């Protein structure tokens, strides 16, 4: 599964993307965030406030409770500030 990071999530983790193999128990976006946060200090820092992290599966906004099964690309980022 390809995971992308943007803005300060990317800066804190120190990379823009990577491939990960989460355990089968990581069923939802929230589960995946919890698993990623356990992978090291930089991840724990990036995901220290899971409530502010937004996610997209295959380029569509999703909620924390959305299932990740079948996802090719999951992106994590702070609230958007375009315009």
């Amino acid at each position: 599964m390809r995971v992308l990071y943007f803005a300060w999530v990317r800066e804190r983790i120190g990379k823009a993307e990577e491939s990960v193999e989460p355990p089968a128990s990581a069923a939802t976006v929230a589960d995946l965030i919890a698993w990623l946060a356990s992978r090291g200090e930089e991840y724990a820092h990036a995901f220290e406030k899971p409530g502010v992290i937004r996610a997209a599966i295959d380029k569509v906004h999703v909620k924390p409770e959305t299932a990740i099964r079948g996802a090719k690309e999951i992106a994590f980022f702070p609230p958007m500030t375009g315009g």
Partner: protein
Amino acid sequence: MSAPVTIRLQTSDFDVAAETAALTRGRTDIGAVVNFVGICRGGEGEGAISALTLEHYPGMAEEEIARHANEALARWPLTGLTIIHRYGRLMPGENIMMVLTASAHRAAAFEAAQFLMDYLKTAAPFWKSEERASGARWVEATREDDAAAARWTKS
């Protein structure tokens, strides 16, 4: 007649006059054109911004904006719309983005432009980082912007 939709993400500046001409040329069914241009502000004193860097999610940004452009076409009788959003590093005074809407009547053009702006401010995958003497800082989303976006989902 058709309602052309143009969406471009680019590092270079844009030309509002050329985009307006492209949307209106040869047509006599357009009575109102509304254009919004977002510009990089500088501020003054110690908190002055020296540069703004715009990051975006390539692919998703285009798709998301296209979905909302289509929603605008479905909600208002537009004769066309153009959205251009820059990314990369910009200086104070430089253009950041523009929305252009055209319609037979002004209410549709104004409302669609505001709808698209409220959307772009809150849900399009762009992030801004401001550079000051004290360092770079990511811009936080504002409650005002969320409230502005929420008005379009009320019936």
